[in-house]
């Protein structure tokens, strides 16, 4: 097993053993349980057309964003903050691993955990599919979009974690940034210039998710996510390479 895999596996293990991992999973599943219950309520309503887009009910709703806003900061807040606070970062950075490997492992650990949580909800669709016909396409697009968007948000969370040795501050910081990114779309109501509106639309996460839920997997948001992920991780690398941070 190479070093990156070992580092990532350690991240996942620590998350799994820590109370944070258990709490986040429990809360996430609780919220998703409510979502499932609502889905069934809606689908049982005779006025609802059963062929109504299942994915649009699930992705992009109120609970979807709540789950995202809870899981991302809690999964990322400890990555660097905790190591910095306890001092275990010293043994990590004096081991024969590169800073790139360290940053990537923190990111991958949180991202894989995030992906695992969302993967659990696939069961809902499997169950629902037995009772009502719907198209798998938009559902798959919704999951893929959620994973890619999650990569970006997690990279931002890892960056905020590297900036402070206090987990709570790091989590709050990530939460607020997520919230601001989420709200970018609101600006389009105050801008008249069509080009500016187009840019704002391009950056607006709810718009993206609505597209995914329609089964539209566009490369444009994917490029945005990939670039923000890359920039955040590069910045994290710069932060931990900083002599002031290390002393």
């Amino acid at each position, binding site marked *: 097993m190479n070093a990156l895999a070992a580092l990532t596996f350690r991240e996942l293990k620590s998350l799994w053993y820590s109370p944070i991992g258990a709490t986040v999973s429990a809360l996430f599943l609780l919220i998703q349980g409510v979502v499932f219950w609502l889905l069934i309520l809606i689908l049982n309503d005779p006025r609802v057309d059963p062929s109504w887009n299942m994915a649009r009910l699930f992705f992009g709703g109120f609970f979807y964003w709540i789950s995202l806003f809870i899981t991302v900061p809690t999964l990322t807040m400890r990555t660097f903050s905790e190591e910095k606070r306890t001092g*275990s970062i*010293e043994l990590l950075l004096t081991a*024969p691993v590169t800073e790139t490997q360290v940053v990537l492992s923190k990111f991958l650990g949180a991202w894989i955990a995030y992906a695992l949580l969302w993967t659990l909800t696939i069961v809902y669709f499997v169950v629902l599919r037995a009772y009502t016909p719907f198209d798998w396409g938009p559902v798959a697009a919704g999951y893929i979009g959620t994973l890619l968007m999650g990569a970006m948000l997690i990279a931002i969370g890892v960056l905020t974690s590297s900036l402070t040795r206090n987990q709570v501050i790091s989590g709050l910081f990530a939460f607020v940034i997520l919230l601001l990114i989420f709200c970018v779309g609101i600006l389009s109501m105050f801008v008249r210039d069509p080009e500016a509106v187009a840019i704002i639309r391009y950056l607006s996460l709810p718009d993206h998710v609505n597209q995914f839920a329609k089964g539209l997997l566009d490369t444009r948001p994917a490029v945005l996510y990939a670039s923000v992920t890359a920039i955040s991780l590069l910045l994290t690398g710069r932060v931990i390479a900083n002599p002031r941070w290390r002393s």
Partner: protein
Amino acid sequence: MLLRRRGLDKRLSHNHNDSIPTNTMTAAIDVQQLTKRYDAVTALSDISFSVQPGEIMGFLGPNGAGKTTTLRILTGMIAPTQGSVRINGLDVTQHPLEVRRQIGYLPENVALYPELRVKEYLDYRAQIKGVPGIQCKKRVQAVMEQCALTDMQRRLIGRLSKGYRQRVALADCLLAQPKVLILDEPTVGLDPHQIRQTREFILALGRTTTILLSTHILPEVEMICQKVIIIDRGRIRAVDTPDRLRRSLSAFGVVRVQLRADMNQAMPALQQLAGIAKVSRQGEADGFFMLDIEPKEGQDVREPVFLLASQRGWTLRELSAQRASLEDVFVHLTTHEQTTEGAVQGAPA
């Protein structure tokens, strides 16, 4: 203890120059003109020393002297402002991974992952240290046996006592069979029994490995180390064997005298004796007066004192040069005219 400061310093720095080998090609640790500044604060200024393969080098200094800073530069944790560090001939800043592969580092603050079990942690460390897959299991077993951790392998690290945690960290150091061990205060916080075990362990390791041992426990250095570096306020004050350091101080040390005589005559007579800088009365017991005689630089005053006593008919019960301990050397070299506060602020630990 009263000492002639300048003379001793000269002598110590002379020794220091002697001990730096001109040929440093083969040194296990070679530090040249190392300087570390934090903004306006200079934590290390122009430090040079080398440790030969197989040597156990003590690294002594008061808190804030720059010990930990030096060790962190050696392990590549922080970069030096100036100067170079070579481990087995490899530059730390140019070949960081190779160097870290050859070093086992025990930091001052042993922080492990409390949620992992001992064996789990060592497996993980073996993997990131690049111990080949087939050997991993064997190495982990071997270090656990070496550090008496086999019975504890299923324990959560967070539940271990300080002593065991230290052992886990030490086991981790040894996993990749490093050629150089850098140990930052390995016995701090351990009970006397554990301290003794750790010392014996380090001594045993020293037969095959180069060790740089930072500490401020002086008996430890005398027991374990072949050579000592004394550092203070970011500068090297002395490099030598503990024995020679002690002797260099004793040569100028105080002579303790006990005699029965009329003090009104004896005191002035002694003070007039050539080679004596100062005589001070320390007390009286069974009619004998205890005197501490501080000689002038480089003088042995025991013979003149004896001759004077026999000539005047004084009864002499004790005439002994006080043997300096490493502690005296340490205190002497690291005591400043100014307050020590400056030193504490001077360098972040």
